[in-house]
């Protein structure tokens, strides 16, 4: 069974772009992340390198479009262009780059950029998802 409320493979058009609301990165984000992951860090003003990446999918849940019905997250390629600091405000810009239909589902490659308050891309890359098709329950 898969949820009725969602964005399915058929609902995605290559080139679709989504801009999320922005979020200010705080010491609380950094401290929670370090506690959860065991990442060490001496500088309390630094945002851990992989934290913005970890926020990139969740930022997409902050606006009204139904969430992508992901069956599996297959992989990612990611580049970190420059560090972020506590107090920076980021949003995510996602675009459907590739769609490949398979029998019961489809592969979607999205480009994601983490953009700061100056409009500069701090991190970015490509996510590969296996996405459900409407009406085909996963085996």
């Amino acid at each position: 069974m898969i949820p009725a409320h969602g964005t399915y493979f058929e609902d995605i058009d290559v080139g679709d772009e989504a801009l999320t609301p922005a979020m200010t990165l705080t010491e609380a984000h950094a401290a929670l992340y370090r506690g959860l992951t065991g990442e060490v860090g001496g500088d309390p003003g630094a945002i851990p390198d992989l934290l913005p990446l970890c926020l990139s999918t969740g930022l997409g849940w902050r606006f009204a479009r139904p969430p992508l019905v992901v069956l599996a997250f297959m992989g990612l390629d990611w580049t970190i262009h420059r560090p972020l600091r506590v107090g920076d405000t980021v949003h995510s810009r996602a675009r459907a780059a590739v769609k490949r239909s398979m029998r019961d589902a489809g592969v979607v490659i999205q480009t994601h950029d983490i953009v700061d308050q100056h409009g500069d891309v701090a991190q970015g890359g490509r996510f590969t998802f296996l996405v459900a098709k409407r009406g085909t329950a996963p085996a």
Partner: protein
Amino acid sequence: MTELRRYYDEIEVGEEYESPGRTITETDIVLFAGLSGDYNVLHTDAELMKTSIFGERIAHGLLGLAIQSGLFSRSTRAYAALSFTSLRWKFKAPIKIGDTIRLRARVLAKRETDKPDRGVVTLARTVVNQRGEVVQEGETDVLVERKSA
């Protein structure tokens, strides 16, 4: 005083590290959902997931990626790392609640940059569960300080 961090020049291609294990709990997943805002049913709806191919909730892939990064710091003396620069990553199998994962890492390559005070170290990383199955794997490039002469 002994230098605690290892510099680019001291790291050798072929070095291997293995981290301690870490058991992934429901709490880890709930905290990660709260921190990231990713409430996908894969990670949050126990009843729905009983009917899925996984049979239960699974950890966010990015949670596994973040935890292996933390495990790296427990697997060898810290690099004098400046930052990650890039990563290429595959999620091969689900991490379920109660699974114990560990990181195996190997230095694949070293590359000098146009700046004399830093170099790039490429690590091959494999995350395995308690049955020895590979759940995630990939390569990461880390920018590491060079020892000043």
